[in-house]
C-alpha cells in the first residue's frame, strides 16, 4: 500500500467552480451534443488511417477526426501558421465558448486564459519536419514549420483565437494531461487568480505514436475492447476537448447552464515505472481525490475510466478501484472503446462525457464489449455495448499517464 498523497480539502476553501461550456472535436463527431449522442449509442470512431501512410504497419486503424476543417470553426487563426494539435484545441475552445453562451467581451474583462494538456504536442508538425529531414537533410528544414513545433503553441492557439489575455499554459503530462489542466485551471479560479478559464487538451494522430505503441505490444488487433476478456490494447486517436470553467456565482449571475461543479481533484506520481501503472498509487490518488472533494466512496455513481484496453492497465485500474470501493465498484466504463486513445485529450473527453452524462441522465458505455473479463473479479459493470439511462449525482474521471502521472477529478451535479 502506498503512503497517502498530499491531500487538500478542496470543498472547504475557496470559490465554487463550475463547468458551463463544452467543446468536442472528436473521432465520433464535432460538437458536444453530437459527441454525447455518439457516445451514448456506442458509436465507433476508429477507421483506416488517412493522415499518414500506414501501409507498412501491421495495424492500420486510428481514431482520426476525418471531417475536421479548421476554417469551419476558427475566426482568427491562419491554419497555415499553426499545427494540427493547436487547431484542434482552438476549434474545441470556440465550440466550448459558444456552448457556454459567454460573450467574448466577458472573456476579455475576466482576463480568461487557457490551460491545455497534451501528450505529443505538435506531433504532426514534427512528423512533417522529419519527412523533410529524410528527404533533403537537416539543412532543408522549413523554418516556418520549425517555428510551429513547441507544445506551448497548443494553449497559445486557444488564446490567440479567442484573444485571451490571461494565463496561457500547456501541460504536457502525457495521457492524464487534460485532467491535469482541468485541475490547475480549477485551482486558478477557486483561488481567485482567474475568474474564467478554458481547460482541456489536444493531440493529433501521428506515425511515431502509432509505431511506439505497436513496439510496446500495446496496440489492439482490431478495435479497443476495454475490460473484455479478449482485450488486446489501444487504438491511437486524436482530438480537441475544451471545457469552460467559471465561478458558481458568475454562472448564476449570467443565467448560464451549469453542467457540473468541480468538487475537487488529486494528482500524484507512481514514482515506480515509466510505463506500467501502479494499483496502490492509483488507489491513493482516488482516496486523495475523494478527500479533496469531501465525498465518500459510496457517493460515487460512475467512474469514467482511463480504460486503455491493454490487459495490464485495465486490471490494474479495477484493482485500484476495488482497493477503495471494496466490492461495490460503481459502474466503470471506457469511452476509449469508441474514440480510440486520444492521448492528451483523453481525460478532457472523459470530463465532457461526465458532464453530458450528468445533464442527460445516462451511463456512457464501453463499446465493442458484451461482458466484462471474469478475471477482473465480481461486480465489474463496464456498461457494455450502449449507454444506459441512470440518474447520476457525483462522478469520477480518471487520467493516468506514462511517467506515473495520475490525476483524478470529481464532478458533481448542481441542483
Amino acid at each position, binding site marked *: 500500500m502506498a503512503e497517502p498523497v498530499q491531500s487538500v480539502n478542496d470543498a472547504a476553501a475557496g470559490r465554487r467552480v463550475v463547468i458551463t461550456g463544452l467543446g468536442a472535436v472528436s473521432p465520433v463527431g464535432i460538437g458536444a451534443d453530437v459527441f454525447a449522442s455518439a457516445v451514448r449509442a456506442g458509436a465507433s470512431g476508429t477507421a483506416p488511417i488517412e493522415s499518414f501512410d500506414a501501409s507498412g504497419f501491421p495495424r492500420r486503424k486510428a481514431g482520426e477526426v476525418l471531417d475536421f476543417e479548421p476554417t469551419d470553426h476558427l475566426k482568427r487563426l491562419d491554419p497555415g501558421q499553426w499545427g494540427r494539435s493547436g487547431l484542434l484545441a482552438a476549434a474545441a475552445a470556440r465550440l466550448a465558448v459558444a456552448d457556454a453562451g459567454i460573450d467574448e467581451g466577458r472573456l476579455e*474583462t*475576466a*482576463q480568461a486564459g487557457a490551460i491545455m494538456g497534451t501528450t505529443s504536442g505538435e506531433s504532426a508538425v514534427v512528423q512533417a519536419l522529419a519527412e523533410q529531414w529524410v528527404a533533403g537533410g537537416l539543412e532543408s528544414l522549413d523554418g516556418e514549420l520549425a517555428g510551429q513545433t513547441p507544445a506551448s503553441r497548443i494553449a497559445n492557439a486557444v488564446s490567440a483565437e479567442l484573444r485571451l489575455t490571461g494565463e496561457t499554459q500547456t501541460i504536457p503530462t502525457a495521457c492524464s494531461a487534460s485532467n491535469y489542466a482541468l485541475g490547475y485551471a480549477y485551482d486558478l479560479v477557486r483561488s481567485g487568480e482567474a475568474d474564467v478559464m478554458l481547460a482541456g487538451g489536444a493531440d493529433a494522430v501521428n*506515425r511515431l505514436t502509432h509505431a511506439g505503441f505497436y513496439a510496446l505490444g500495446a496496440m489492439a488487433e482490431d478495435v479497443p475492447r476495454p475490460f473484455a476478456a479478449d482485450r488486446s490494447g489501444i487504438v491511437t486517436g486524436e482530438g480537441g476537448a475544451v471545457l469552460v470553467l467559471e465561478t458558481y456565482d458568475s454562472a448564476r449571475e449570467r443565467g448560464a447552464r451549469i453542467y457540473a461543479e468541480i468538487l475537487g481533484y488529486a494528482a500524484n506520481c507512481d514514482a515506480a515505472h515509466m510505463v506500467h501503472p501502479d494499483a496502490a498509487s492509483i488507489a491513493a490518488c482516488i482516496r486523495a481525490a475523494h478527500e479533496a472533494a469531501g465525498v465518500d466512496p459510496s457517493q460515487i455513481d460512475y467512474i469514467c475510466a482511463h480504460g486503455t484496453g491493454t490487459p495490464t492497465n485495465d486490471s490494474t485500474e479495477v484493482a485500484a478501484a476495488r482497493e477503495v470501493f471494496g466490492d461495490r465498484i460503481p459502474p466503470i466504463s471506457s469511452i476509449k472503446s469508441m474514440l480510440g486513445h486520444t492521448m492528451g485529450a483523453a481525460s478532457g473527453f472523459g470530463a465532457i462525457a461526465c458532464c453530458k452524462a450528468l445533464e442527460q441522465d445516462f451511463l456512457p458505455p464501453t463499446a465493442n464489449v458484451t461482458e466484462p473479463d471474469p478475471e477482473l473479479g465480481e461486480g465489474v459493470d463496464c456498461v457494455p455495448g450502449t449507454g444506459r439511462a441512470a440518474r447520476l449525482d457525483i462522478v469520477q474521471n480518471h487520467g493516468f499517464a506514462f511517467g506515473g502521472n495520475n490525476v483524478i477529478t470529481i464532478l458533481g451535479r448542481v441542483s
Partner: protein
Amino acid sequence: MTTATAAPAAATTATVEPLYVTGAGVVSSAGHGLAPLAEALRSKSAVSYGDPVGESYGDPVGDDADAYPPRPVRAVQGFRVQDHLGRKGTKYLDRLTSFGLVACKEVLEGLEGTEREGGRTGVVLATNTGSVSTHSTLLYDTLTLEKPYLVNPGRFPNTVMNSTSGQIAIRNGLRGLNATVAGGQTASLLAFRHARLALSLGRAERLLVGGAEELSAPAAWAWHRTGVLREGAALGEGAAVFTVQKEAPAGGVLAEILACEVRFTPDPRQYADGLADAVSRALDRSGVRPEEVDDVSLGAVHHRGLERIEERGVRAALGGGLPRAVRVADVLGETYSASGAMQLAALLGLWEAEEAVGPRTALVTSVGRDGNAAALVVRRPR
C-alpha cells in the same frame, strides 16, 4: 463579484506570501552549480554572441556533432551521466533527462532526512518539446526502416514530454505532484507560477522547480532555420532546478520567490505593454516598488525583435530606467525551456559571488513569440 461592465483586472491582486528557495542544482556549459556560472558572467569568459568563439565552449558534442549548422553552440562539455548517477538504469536516458536528473540530484543532496520524504515532494519542470534528439531519432527510424514499427520500445517512453519529470520521480521516489509545463520562452517562469499556486493551496510541501534543454543537430537546425535568433547568437543547453517550499526553513535560504505574474498578448504590437503589465502586477503583488528593483535578469537576449520589446516593457513598468541587467544567454547561449531557470540561477550565483550586503530584489522577465510574457520577483533576504 465582477460584472461584464467592470474594468479588466478582475482577478485577484492580493499580496503573495514568499516561497523559500533552499537549494539550487545547475548543469550548464559554465560547469556544475551556481559558482562557475557566476564566474563566467563576471569574467565574460564565454561570450556567446559574435566571434571569436571561446575555444572550450564552441564545439558541439555527441554523435551528431558534425551535422550542426554554422552557428556557435555552448554545449555542456564532457558530460557523462554515469559519472553522476552510476551505471545502473542509465542505458536509455537521453541527454535532456540526464541533465534534469543530475540537477535534481544536486538539490536533493542538500535536503535533510525528513525533508526527503517522497510523498510530500513533487516536481514542476519546464519543457517545450521534450527530448528532440530522442523524438527525431525515432521518427527518422520509423520513416526509414523497412518495418516502420520496429522502433526501439525501450526508448519510446522517452518521447513523451513528461519523461524527464517522471524519471526524476522514479529515481528519487518523489510521489507528490508531478507537473510538466510548456510556455515557449516563458516556460520556466510558468513552472514557478504553477509551483506557487500548488504550494499555496497545499498540493505539495516542497517542489523541485526548473527547466531543462538539450542540444542536438536537429534542434540546432530548427533554431537556425527559424531565423528568430540574431546571426551569430549561440544555442545552449543544460538544466537548473530549485527546491521551493512554503514553510520557512530552519536552515539557510538562497532566495525568496515573491509574485510570478503572466500575461498573454494576442496582438504583436502590444507585446511590450503585455510584459509591462505582468511586471507591474508582479511588483504590486510582491509589495515591491519599481525603484526597489536592483537587478533585472532578461530572457529574450539575442532574439530578433523580442530583445528590444523586453527592454521596452521592463522600462515602462519601472518608470523609464533599467537597473543592472543580467544577460545569462550571453554566457550560456539560448537555453529556451530552461532560460527562465538559468536567469534565476544567474542572479543567485552573482549574489553569492558578490557577497552582497543587505537585501537585494530582482526581476526575472521573459517574453515569447506568440505573446506569452512573464515576470518573477525574487529577493535575497538579510
